[in-house]
């Protein structure tokens, strides 16, 4: 069935819409992690893209070295990368407390260079294949389009994770402590809550989300040492557009920009690389604090 819209088949249109949603899911997971980390640590985690890549490699190693498949990877990779994050926070980021926020950016940029450089040395720049798990192979015909099951799963699962994170931070007691510690760490500490531990775990959780996104991306984008390098710049633009003030804001902005990017691929392919940056420029002109940001 073909309904031509501006000479573009519905299959192509919905196909790109789905790809856009998937990219949007990754934007949402990554910018969510960045926002959570920024809220607690006041650090823009430049290593986020590199740790997303490490997450994907974790899945690859688990499968090829230990024979543990996709579902195990979905559980183990975020824990491994989260633990790595805890080590990074305890040994390095913690020493930057009280310094200009820019030093956190510089330190994590250096970490990204190290991590990506090491992986590039051993794996070059080409992609390693990672198969879609058997349960999610194949696709369903929705009438207006063919939906590969795995892609549908990625969108739904990311959405669930994003909403769960939102719920945890905005609606639970732990989240309330977290938000309070963001506002006034010394006061929360005075109430006997271990804020440094909370900060460490927050960083671990944020990079764990990045690793989760990496595992989800592995069957779609292949596993490459530089898979997060350019991606993280787009995520930064997403963060600027959404503003880091709100959890839901990051999620909505992430999905929205993924879709806009997908649509641009249909109607004006040359601009698809830059459309997010153009939107960022427009948002800065109209609402400098970002769509969901509070002016600070």
């Amino acid at each position, binding site marked *: 069935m073909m309904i031509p819209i501006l000479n573009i088949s519905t299959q192509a249109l919905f196909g790109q819409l789905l790809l856009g949603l998937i990219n949007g899911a990754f934007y949402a997971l990554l910018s969510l992690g960045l926002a959570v980390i*920024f809220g607690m640590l006041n650090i*823009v985690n430049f290593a986020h893209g590199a740790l997303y890549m490490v997450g994907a490699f974790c899945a690859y190693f688990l499968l090829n070295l230990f024979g543990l498949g996709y579902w195990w990877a979905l559980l183990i990779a975020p824990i491994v990368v989260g633990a790595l994050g805890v080590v990074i926070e305890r040994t*390095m980021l913690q*020493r*930057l407390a009280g*310094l200009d*926020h*820019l*030093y956190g*950016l*510089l*330190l994590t*940029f*250096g*970490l*990204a*260079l*190290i*991590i*990506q*450089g*090491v992986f*590039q*040395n051993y794996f070059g720049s080409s992609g390693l294949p990672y198969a879609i798990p058997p349960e999610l192979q194949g696709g369903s015909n929705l009438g207006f389009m063919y939906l590969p099951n795995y892609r549908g799963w990625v969108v739904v699962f990311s959405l669930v994770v994003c909403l769960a994170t939102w719920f945890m931070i905005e609606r639970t007691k732990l989240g309330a402590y977290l938000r309070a510690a963001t506002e006034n760490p010394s006061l929360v500490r005075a109430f006997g809550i271990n804020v440094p531990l909370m900060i460490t775990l927050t960083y671990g959780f944020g990079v764990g989300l990045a690793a989760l996104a990496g595992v989800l991306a592995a069957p779609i984008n292949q596993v490459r040492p530089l898979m997060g390098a*350019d991606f993280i*710049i*787009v995520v*930064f*633009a997403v*963060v*600027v557009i959404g503003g880091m003030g709100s959890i839901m804001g990051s999620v909505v902005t992430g999905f929205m920009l993924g879709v806009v990017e997908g649509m641009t691929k249909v109607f004006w392919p*040359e601009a698809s*690389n*830059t459309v*997010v*940056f*153009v939107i*960022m*420029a427009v948002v*800065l*002109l109209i609402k*400098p604090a970002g769509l969901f940001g509070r002016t600070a």
Partner: protein
Amino acid sequence: MTAHAISSSAAIDAAKRRDELIAFAVLFLVLAAAPAVIYPFFLMQALCFALFACAFNLLIGYVGLLSFGHAMFLGLAGYVSAHMAKVGTIDIGSANFGIHLNFGPMNPLVAILFGVAASAILGVLTGALAIRRQGIYFAMITLALSQMIYFFCLQAPFTHGEDGIQGVPQGKLLLGHIDLSQQTTMYYFVLAIFVVGFAIIHRVVNSPFGDVLKSIRENEPRAISLGYKSDQYKLAAFVLSAALVGLAGATKSIVAQNASLTDVHFAMSGEVVLMTLVGGLGTFFGPIVGAFIIVAMQNYLAGFGQWVQVIQGVIFVACVLAFRRGIVGEIAHRLGISL
């Protein structure tokens, strides 16, 4: 303030100026004599990067703005000056409507000026956007905008995409009296450009304008409350920095006789941060020292592939954790002087 305090602060200023003048004279003499012992092509490259780092330092060191997108100015100026020196056409707009000029291949100095102008214009456009946010947002915005320029350079016809612009003629100056294809001549041409750029930065930082910039770095709300329009000052500093980076990039493309995507990629933006950090943020001579060290390191370690990147990352981490003053900053701190 008492008369005594005024005279002693004037004395400190005079001593500071004397220290800087001596350091500047030593640096100039060393650089003028250097080609006798060090491979001139390396020196020319290092000088271009040194000017790049000094111009970057103008923003981070004296206004407190961390730009993570300065490669866009280096790369764009490199492309424009290489194109002007080799082809010399300007085509903007469609075939029927737009600007279409054909100057033919230009002399290198004019080509460089075109590169500087292009970077300055880009500086106005990107700076006006970026200064709308502060701190880490400023860094992320400049990074995103430079990525946009990267894709522009990848797709625009005049840059030749992945191939870049190759075989840029070095040309002659002053009606053919100065032949830049002579390596020694080229070296002193580059040195002259570097000294001019460095002197401009020094003059700006030590001017009343520079004092306002430093006050914005220290406490922006207070500077605003004193009646300074901080946005205008920040934009002016940004454009000046962009233009000087353009000068470095344009000169670099004439020296290396090519312009490529490397110079506009965000890894280059990271490298200039590293150079400045290693040498010392906010010091006059730090970026020069940092640039020479990083360029030398890249030359010597070129055979080690991606380990260079790992080493750079380690240096980044080490500097941020334990060595935030940088080399020159540390020396100046130990000696109790300002460099």
